[in-house]
């Protein structure tokens, strides 16, 4: 399987070439074009009840699509995300990677996706009650609104709520106020996430709340 992230930062897309017999699993509605030879199987996202959980709690869809190449030649397809923004991939080699709900785009079959309780902290920080846990061996593709930037954490760091996209298992999240009580509520920052531990985090350089705050007053 050959995967390549193409396009500008603002409108990245994923180009995949599947060799005969290979499969890629994508978020529903993520396929934008493909060779006619590819077969699509829509499956419940980990079973009916788990699928429902993932849809309503994990921010993912009830169904997930398996694209399989049952032909004798290589087939290409392109996969896109719904939001304008950057895509990234993460190669898993028998390790774990956490992604925020809604950011998942595609994975290879060797990677399993689980929904994990992220704690009340994560919920209050507007990062969702659950997080997506990827484990196994293979590739995970994820994306978000804005450019994706990598930060190496060793110790503590503060990330504004709704800017965190993904993190390594060595990282734990805590919640705190951005400043004092007055500052937190009038400064427009409110609650922030305190990231602790050692490892990489991926942040998005824009947030939908920022966009809405800029745009909403301009509509009449």
């Amino acid at each position: 399987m050959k995967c390549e992230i193409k396009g500008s930062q603002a409108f990245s897309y994923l180009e995949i070439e599947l060799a005969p017999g290979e499969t890629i699993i994508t978020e529903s509605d993520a396929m934008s074009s493909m060779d006619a030879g590819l077969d699509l199987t829509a499956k419940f996202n980990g079973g009916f009840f788990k699928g429902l959980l993932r849809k309503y709690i994990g921010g993912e869809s009830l169904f997930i699509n398996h694209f399989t190449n049952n032909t004798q030649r290589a087939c290409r397809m392109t996969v896109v995300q719904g939001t304008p923004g950057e895509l990234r991939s993460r190669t898993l080699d028998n390790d774990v990677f956490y992604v925020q709900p809604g950011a998942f785009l595609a994975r290879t079959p060797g990677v399993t996706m689980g929904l994990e309780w992220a704690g009340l902290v994560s919920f209050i920080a507007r990062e969702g009650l659950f997080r997506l846990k990827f484990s196994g061996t293979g590739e995970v593709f994820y994306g978000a609104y804005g450019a994706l930037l990598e930060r190496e954490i060793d110790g503590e760091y503060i990330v504004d709520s709704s800017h965190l996209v993904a993190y390594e298992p060595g990282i734990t999240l805590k919640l705190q106020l951005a400043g004092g009580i007055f500052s937190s509520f009038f400064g427009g920052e409110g609650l922030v996430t305190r990231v602790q531990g050692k490892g990489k985090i991926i942040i998005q350089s824009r947030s939908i709340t920022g966009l809405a705050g800029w745009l909403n007053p301009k509509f009449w």
Partner: protein
Amino acid sequence: MQDNHFNVILTGDLRDGIDLSAAISSLAAMFKTSEEKIQQTIAKAPVSVKSNVEAATAEKFKTAIEQCGFVCVIKAVSETVAATAPVSAPLPVPVNQDVLASASEIVESPASFKGLSYKIEGRPDYSFLTVQIPANQTLKVEASAMATMDTHLVMKTKLKGGFGRFLTGESLFLNEFTAERAAGEIGLAPGTPGDLFHQYLDGQTIFLQNSAFVAATMDVTLETKWQGMLKGFFSGESFFLIRCSGKGDLWFNSYGAIIEIDVEDDYVVDTSNIVAFTDGLEYNITRVGGYKSLFFSGEGFVCRFTGKGKVWIQTRSAQAFTSWAHFFRPV
């Protein structure tokens, strides 16, 4: 004024006996950018890697670049203007932007730089600014722009500029982030999709469109300025501008990419595309053509700048976006 200022030009040629890839990688290390960017820059050679600097600084750059293995020449600014035409016209404000930086997606503050060190990533679509705040110094930041920071930074919310800022449409509150005891890092993400731009103010004054402010150091004074009823009404933006003066770093943002324009005589900008302009420029709101054009050309009113200075424009306007998107909104 121009005589004692110089541009450092990378000719693209290698010095004798130097391996190209080795030279590129050492140059990349020096400018803290990727080898790919350097290759792109070299491909455009001859390019000016540092413009409008004094002789001593230019000499320093030349030596450093030549150590990496590239041939480098220094030209007086006045010569370069003649040679490369409108790229660098007279500059009332010293410009820190250089060709190397604009070729790359990541802008970093140059080594010989007076202000705070900073980095802009994700250009031009979703620019993200990271500023290193030295110990016990403070940075003024637009409310809700903070995206990441070190844990020891202390945030204080200030009501800046009094009631004036309430009217500009800029948030009433500014956040001040102080690095207590030790230096700290802060990451800023403006709400608008678009670019970020840095200016070092050294006594000059820059006027910003009401929502363009992102961050500034403490010695930069921010005031709101009434544009006048007529200008404010027809500019389509706001009745107020933000006047930035003093000494220090200033960062502002745009919707779309930012283009810097040197104005020498008259220049016309659509009112909704103005991001910022330097003091010394007079501006008037005028029509482009006759009354028929005013209503049917779709251009409406424009801003006519006269005098000498710089104007920064954005390549998209919020009004155009909202009127396009409006039809798709559920009512």
